[in-house]
């Protein structure tokens, strides 16, 4: 009989769980990291389009135009936002991101005719200057929030929560609280910033209504007011936001990213974007405001197919955050300097990671210069290069979107509809409320509810 090492991994105390416990025992504080949930959940990948055949006919790609213009904020605002595509850039702060990254985002969004969004930390001059359409976030922390910037933005987004941490406040660890960041936020330089999770001047939906009215009064009812929420009790929350007077509701699903949040939040709070979208649409339909109040969905949007499926399920637009950063070079093996690609695998290794796996935005040591306030690292992303990459990426998303829409016989991407989709899994069918492929079965729904 030969001796053997028995290596059967426990399903309960697997290597992941063991590493988690060892880490907790070593440090006594929970893990904080960037990016979004890594767990597998039903996504837009679990849906496919029923493109045209005999029962429907497609549009010709070269000759027949497919419109992608998108208007947000038509309910009460005198000046709604008019976008060339239904793809917007999500709120990410200067502080979490470098000034160069914010400028690159503004340039690309402006060139592609879409909007970008500030973040927890206020509006920088570079961002304002580079962004043709800038959505100004009103967050619980109110860092840098001021009436001059309120009056110079194209829309206000009241942030109640984020998909990566619904119910939690922002974080910015000391390495990123530089002198400039601290000054903008009225904080001591170099502290571990932990933001409030509730707004300082209102609590609850009745107050939210009055807060929205105040912002409308300050801006003379000119610009739209969005309300952004993390996806939890979506049906109720969307209805309350609509009742409170939102022009646009933004729902951020479980897969949404962050620059720094407790790991336990990222992986264990909120519902998947797919399920959240269907609930948000149901809420708007229930109030008979579908189309009057625009819906923006975010959290794990990556491809033009994701955008098309989101629109087919009822979104007016999507918002992209992590994908934006990846387009700028996040998790790339190299950064580009004077036209040359410079390998930074070693810098990833110093963080204990490698390209493709990095979630170390919280450290401020971003090897490709995006999520940093370090003066030397920041130079690794030049606004011109980053803007070009992001512009290209946005262009691809919109091309893929219109390609699928044409194939479904739609001359406008907003004509995509739920009937164009089927699901590949029972879970996705139930969450998205579309039939399982090859059947007329929507799990959890009777025929009369369709």
């Amino acid at each position: 009989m030969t001796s053997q090492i028995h290596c059967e991994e426990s399903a309960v105390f697997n290597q992941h769980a063991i590493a988690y416990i060892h880490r907790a025992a070593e440090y006594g504080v929970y893990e904080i990291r960037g990016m979004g949930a890594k767990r597998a959940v039903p996504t837009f990948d679990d849906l496919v389009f029923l493109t045209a055949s005999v029962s429907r006919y497609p549009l010709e790609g070269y000759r027949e135009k497919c419109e992608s213009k998108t208007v947000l904020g038509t309910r009460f605002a005198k000046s709604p936002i008019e976008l060339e595509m239904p793809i917007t850039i999500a709120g990410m702060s200067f502080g979490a991101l470098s000034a160069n990254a914010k400028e690159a985002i503004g340039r690309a969004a402006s060139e592609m005719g879409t909007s970008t969004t500030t973040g927890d930390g206020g509006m920088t001059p570079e961002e304002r200057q580079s962004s043709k359409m800038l959505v100004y976030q009103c967050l619980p922390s109110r860092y840098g929030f001021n009436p001059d910037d309120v009056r110079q933005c194209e829309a206000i987004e009241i942030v109640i929560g984020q998909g990566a941490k619904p119910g939690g406040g922002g974080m910015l660890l000391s390495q990123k609280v530089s002198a400039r960041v601290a000054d903008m936020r009225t904080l001591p330089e170099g502290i571990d910033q932990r933001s409030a999770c509730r707004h300082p001047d209102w609590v609850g939906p009745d107050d939210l209504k009055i807060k929205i009215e105040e912002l409308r009064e300050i801006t003379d009812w000119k610009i739209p007011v969005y309300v952004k929420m993390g996806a939890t009790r979506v049906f109720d929350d969307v209805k309350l936001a609509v009742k409170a007077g939102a022009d646009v509701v933004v729902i951020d699903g479980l897969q949404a990213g962050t620059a720094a949040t407790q790991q336990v939040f990222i992986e264990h709070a909120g519902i998947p974007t797919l399920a959240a979208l269907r609930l948000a649409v149901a809420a708007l339909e229930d109030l008979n405001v579908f189309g009057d109040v625009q819906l923006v969905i975010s959290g794990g949007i990556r491809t033009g197919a994701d955008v098309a499926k989101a629109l087919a399920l009822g979104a007016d637009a999507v918002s992209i955050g992590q994908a934006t950063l990846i387009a700028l070079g996040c998790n790339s093996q190299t950064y580009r300097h004077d036209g040359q690609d410079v390998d930074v695998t070693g810098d990833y290794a110093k963080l204990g990671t490698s390209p493709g796996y990095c979630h170390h935005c919280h450290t401020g040591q971003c090897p490709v210069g995006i999520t940093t306030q370090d003066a030397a690292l920041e130079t690794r992303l030049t606004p011109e290069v980053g803007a070009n990459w992001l512009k290209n990426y946005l262009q691809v998303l919109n091309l893929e979107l219109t390609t699928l829409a044409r194939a479904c016989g739609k001359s406008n991407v907003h004509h995509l509809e739920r009937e164009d989709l089927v699901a590949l899994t029972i879970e996705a069918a139930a969450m998205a409320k579309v039939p399982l492929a090859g059947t007329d079965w929507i799990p959890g729904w009777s025929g009369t509810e369709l």
Partner: protein
Amino acid sequence: MECVKQLDLAKLTVRNVNDFLHNQLSGIQHSNGFERIEILNPNGMHSIAVGLDAPVDVDIFGHAGYFIAGMNKQANVVVHGNVGWSVAENIMSGSVYVKGHASECVGASAQGGLVVVEGDASSRCGISLKGGEIVIGGSVGHCAAFMAQAGTIVVCGDAGAYLGDSLYEATIYVRGKIHSLGSDAQEKEMQDQDFAKVAGLLLAANMDFDSKNFQRVVSARTLYHWNADEYQQY
């Protein structure tokens, strides 16, 4: 001779009034010489005189609702009555003076200017304060100066529970009893500059108290960094 423009909320909407204050004020000031605006019959309405950005005096006669004089710049607003939540929220400069009592969140996130309440203020007075100055003639409720980052709060009466919880660099002065201090708040001995600071703010607020009778509360700065040994709960 002082020129006064009256805006009667029994006849106008809040939107009419704010539109006038935002868009017609400076023209009238220059051409017709208006120096003071009187707003009549506020009757608990919200968002009156918000977003002002002009050196003008505004008197509101009666009780008013939420967010009065929110995000104010330059203007001096006096409310001859009580106010609801979040009076002078995010004020940048100028002053807001409440002759009566105030509900919650007085001067929330105020970045500059002076906010005075002659009577009492409810909970979370000066929450997220970012450089503004607040003087309360009476007492404040719980969690006053919660997460206050910069600026000064003077309380001439008592302070409720959890005063100065999670305080950053703002300073609180209290004349009466402090029910309890919040996390990371601590009392420190008054120094000469503190007496001078309190005396100056009392003078600006037109309040007749002796600065010698105030105590000072500041941050202990133990929450500024993660510390596993402290079992920080956030």
